[in-house]
């Protein structure tokens, strides 16, 4: 990487922030999605629902909760929204299968959801909103993970997310159902034998990494808001969230339509582990790219991407059976490094803009730089644009007079 001046780093930070902005889903898409899954939650908890005694609650998890969600490459592709359906306890006689089927049955009791429901998944029920909609804003599918928590879970969660320190999160684990967990799946009613998962513990870990350099106040705000059933849309993201969005976009472009592409949970985990609290996106991105591989360990000759909240779980467990996935991951890392280097080493603004095109796509590159330019124009129109004696436009130097129009052909 060439040595950049502070000013150049600042400018790259601004450009990459714009890239992140343009990768965010829109506020409308966000609000429609929240509205839809809340409606599902209300339906499941209706008085006459078999689940009503267990106060079912739908909460976002995964990238929707972590703030690392990105738009799909093609406007016609679906957004994936990962949700949990929490039940506070269960009937003493219910097996995993009963829990799964009761959630499924309650969904099917509603004609709308019945029509949207995909084939039963291994752990989830999936609602395919896309199929029923020509409206781009409602093109998403929702993966709903049924799970059991204890009575006090919501309170425990609140307590964890009202302090910024990271501590042992094992008490945030939830019990899930898994069709492949036979014979337990259809016979065992004792929860302590059911598989655990810990999406909220993971989120707590992730936020502790992303907010390293944030002020205490904004840390707590971001934390508390992330576990609200109706989270607020925010286009203000931390540098780590932006870095992960940028990496995921690069992955999407490089592996368009390839099922063996590097998966988001691996990218997110390795990036968060490698991140050292850099405030500037370009510095953070470069360091994360250089550091991600060092976060992969080996156990008994097997490559291991450890789940930070469950050391027993290897996010890269598929690599052993499908070596192509591992190869793709390593190829991706070296490609993303090359592509980011080409951008940083661009000899002028025109070359730098061109260097965005291959790794991130033509349309988004155009949008990024047009919105970057538009900001300068708006700044001038509101008398806030300044120029240094060298010509550099920004917040230093003399104010640029507002009222003039570029004229001519």
């Amino acid at each position: 990487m060439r040595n950049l001046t502070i000013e150049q780093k600042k400018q790259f930070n601004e450009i990459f922030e714009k890239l992140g902005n343009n990768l965010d889903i829109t506020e409308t898409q966000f609000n429609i999605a929240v509205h839809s899954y809340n409606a599902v939650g209300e339906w499941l908890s209706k008085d006459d629902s078999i689940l009503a005694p267990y106060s079912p609650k739908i909460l976002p998890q995964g990238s929707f909760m972590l703030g690392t969600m990105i738009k799909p490459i093609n406007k016609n592709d679906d957004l994936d929204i990962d949700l949990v359906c929490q039940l506070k306890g269960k009937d003493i006689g219910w097996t995993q299968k009963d829990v799964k089927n009761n959630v499924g049955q309650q969904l099917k009791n509603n004609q709308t959801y019945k029509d949207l429901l995909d084939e039963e998944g291994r752990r989830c029920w999936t609602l395919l909103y896309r199929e029923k909609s020509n409206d781009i804003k409602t093109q998403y599918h929702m993966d709903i993970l049924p799970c059991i928590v204890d009575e006090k879970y919501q309170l425990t969660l609140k307590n964890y997310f009202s302090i910024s320190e990271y501590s042992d999160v094992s008490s945030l684990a939830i019990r899930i159902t898994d069709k492949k967990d036979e014979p337990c799946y259809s016979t065992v009613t004792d929860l302590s034998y059911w598989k655990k998962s810990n999406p909220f513990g993971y989120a707590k870990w992730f936020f502790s990494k992303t907010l390293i350099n944030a002020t205490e106040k904004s840390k707590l705000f971001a934390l508390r808001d992330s576990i609200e059933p109706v989270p607020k849309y925010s286009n203000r993201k931390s540098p780590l969230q932006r870095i992960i969005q940028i990496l995921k976009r690069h992955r999407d472009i490089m592996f368009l339509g390839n099922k063996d592409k590097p998966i988001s949970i691996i990218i997110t985990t390795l990036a968060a582990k490698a991140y050292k609290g850099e405030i500037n996106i370009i510095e953070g991105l470069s360091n994360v790219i250089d550091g991600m591989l060092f976060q992969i360990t080996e156990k008994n000759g097997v490559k291991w991407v450890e789940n930070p909240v469950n050391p027993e779980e290897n996010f890269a467990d598929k690599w052993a059976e499908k070596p192509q996935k591992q190869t793709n991951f390593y190829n991706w890392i070296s490609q993303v490094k090359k592509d980011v280097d080409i951008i940083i080493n661009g000899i002028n603004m025109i070359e730098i803009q061109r260097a965005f095109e291959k790794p991130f796509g033509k349309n988004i590159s155009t949008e990024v730089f047009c919105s970057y330019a538009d900001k300068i124009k708006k700044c001038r129109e509101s008398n806030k644009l300044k120029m240094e004696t060298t010509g550099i436009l920004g917040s230093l130097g003399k104010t640029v007079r507002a009222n003039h129009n570029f004229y001519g052909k």
Partner: protein
Amino acid sequence: MVNKKVISLSIQAGILRNCYPNSSLIWMKHNKFIWKYKLQPTALSINYQIKLVYNGYKPDVFIEYPKPLQLANDCTTLEHVYNTKTQKICLYYGKANEWNSTMLIANTIIPWTSEWLFHYEIWAYTGKWNGGGIHIKEDGNIKQ
């Protein structure tokens, strides 16, 4: 209303030299000067050599280096110029009196040139001019 005073050529030239160290000034007779300077609109941009010619009425600005400036894909001319070949650029709308000789070139024309360069760079890649302004259509009419 008090009429603002016309600023003399020598004051314009003196202030340009003062505000922009390392610029060069050549007097062409007593009523015309050429002023040259290097401008860099952003930290990631190259230095552009600009030439300003002033006769007391209307400052003309040319981009001297690089020449030719790169054009956006599928474009044969630059945007907001009087002439693509000479790279004489348009910075203000004369009819609206956006600039007149009571104004300091150093505080108007020069920052506007840097702004033009900024929007030129984005245009050269995106093919879109984001700097606003007024376009003259083929029939001579104006569209905003």
